[in-house]
């Protein structure tokens, strides 16, 4: 299965996502904010990023921009975990380089169905 990095400053949300992914057989790398994500990315190879928007230190959109600047993440799918349904916010996320989004709250099944879209 795939290696998925979950970036969220909320422990419970991150754990919920992680449990769901692990149950579905994926490998999960956790990060609690953008900087942590960049640290943990290091040499790891990540198939998909699930990234919260509002985070301390380095927020989701800045992280996406930083990831897109890395050769190995240039085409990686990055999904924003967001509570925003505002089209303007989505446009900004896309401009930053996000692949798509998953609107919180979501059911575990929804999460799995969505990531199935982006990882073969």
């Amino acid at each position, binding site marked *: 299965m795939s290696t998925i990095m979950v970036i969220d400053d*909320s422990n419970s949300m991150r754990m919920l996502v992680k*449990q769901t992914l692990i*149950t579905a057989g994926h490998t999960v790398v956790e990060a609690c904010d953008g900087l942590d994500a960049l640290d943990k990315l290091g040499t790891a190879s990540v198939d998909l990023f699930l990234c919260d928007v*509002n985070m301390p230190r380095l927020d989701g959109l800045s992280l996406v921009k930083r990831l897109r600047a890395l050769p190995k993440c240039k085409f990686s799918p990055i999904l924003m975990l967001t509570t925003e349904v505002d089209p303007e916010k989505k446009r900004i996320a896309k401009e930053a380089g996000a692949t798509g989004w998953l609107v919180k709250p979501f059911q575990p099944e929804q999460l799995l169905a969505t990531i199935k879209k982006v990882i073969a």
Partner: protein
Amino acid sequence: MSALDAATLAALLETFFEESFEGLERAETSLLALEHDHSEERIGELFRAIHSIKGGAGAFGVTEVTDLAHVMENLLDEIRSGRVATREITAALLQGVDTLRVALVSRRGGKPVDPASHAPIVAQLVALRGGPVAAAPTVTAPTSSAPWRISFAPHAHMMRAGNDPLRMLRELASLGGTVVATDLSRLPPLAELDPTAIYLAWTLTVPGGVARSDIDDIFAWVEGDCDLTIEREVVVAAVAAVPSAVDQASTPPPPPTMGSLRVGIDKIDLLMNMVGELVITQSMLGELDDEGPITVDRIRQIREGLSLLARTTRALQESVVRLRSMPVGQVFGRFPRLVHDLGQQLGKDIAIEITGQSTELDRTVLEKLGDPLVHIVRNSIDHGLETAEQRVAAGKPAQGTVRLHAEHRGSAVVIEISDDGRGLDLPRILELAKQRGLVAPDAQPSDAEIAKLIFAPGFSTARAVSDISGRGVGMDVVWRSIQELHGEVSVETHAGRGTRTVLSLPLTLAIIDGQLIRLGTQTYVVPLLSIVETVEAKAQARHRYGAGEVTRIRDQIVPIVDLAAELGIRPRGASDSDLLMIVESDGAPLGLVVDELLAQQQVVIKSLETNFGRVDGLAGATILGDGRVAFILDIAALSRDIRHAA
């Protein structure tokens, strides 16, 4: 059907609750700070706290709070975008925080509140936002069954955001879609082809039974990154977000109880490390325990093993104590709100300064510290701090300040609560104490002693019983609570300049650093914290003073106590030791005559109350390395008795 089992979900839910309570506390702190600190960081933290609750609440099915969290978030988003947070907005958001807390506490207790009860606060927040909150538009499914015709022409850069057109085609295929035509017209000559760009475009059909929203979902992420037409009209309706108003009784939020303890992973790692060391030491010693003769070499090895064991045990103990420790900030955190609310109630302008909030303290101590601190702070605000007019008249800044400070001092944690108010009215305190028979009519106590009288049971100088303090209970409760925690209280006051109350608390209740002393044939333990120094008493001249003896140490008169006589080990005057241990309690020194100083070691306190019965002058007992029981002296109680007797 859920992808997660019930136990996992329950554990995650508990994490969500804890995180949310912490978040609400942070939000409250930030809201109270908003008046003078509207830094991006502050507002960001506030926004994130509510945002996380909203997100989590939805995910964990705590749906009764989502509407409220949502409108709060919207309002906060406006503030984040530069709107000024007026007092009215702050007050409404604070009420929102309270309401969220109540709802979460109720849900955690298995009795979810009715979301309709949030209507008034939701409406208030919406009104402050200046318009109804737009809910997500819902798309109603079309009734027509004519097939969909989709023309999809990705822009060249679409893949750069990680969107693969093949994925979309695959998904359309899963809905029964078929590709009618592929447009190759944009394809450049091979030499000019950029492998990261898209040059193709497609026309597809999808059966009419498929909902438009399902098709939209597939293209949702590439809107603006492609030319897309999906032919067929749909109806979009907006849903009103404001539920009908229902009266809500305003009850203060109950504090969330501590169900479990969250411990940093670093602390657990450290603990694991220590246990690993312990196992290694155990196996090392185990190897030495065989039938062979006891040689010098073997004894040396056993000694090494034992010293390693001692080191590891101490380290293990320290990490367990750390495990039980929590930052004082957890208790300090509730004060900005308290000060804010009380200040408004009394019409006083009060700032609060908090320092040292990361100082860690035993969890049990911390949990029992809240109420005494509240009493002291309330007292400061009610009696200590003046109104703005009075302050200005006295040449002080109009805004009064309450300071909370915590720090480590040796093996104690010191907490200071100070204010820059009018100070204690010492003459009046003395007068009242005399009226109430708390001190003898002819007594001439020192200022410090008078200040301490406010902790006497039943004492209150409030001229009128106020809503906040002044019921004559409270400060004596403080005294008792701190005593129960083996702590000490002292008060310093300066007329017109303010009052400072200092609480000194042990790091942990279970273990203390002790000095072992010998009295006759008995071993006693003196808490190291109370020892100032040990001197040769012969070198100092001893003087008779009333029934007792005193000595002078560096210009300070120190009463001397024959500890062995005091404890009934031998008759008074039978001690011939020159050794004088100077201890300090409540800021006053006392010289204890002891026979011999033994080792210094950490001792585990065993309660006398539980195992035997309360004994005045003894704080408890401990079991020494050789299995004997040694009593731990209660220096504070001893010096009180002796001062009373004198």
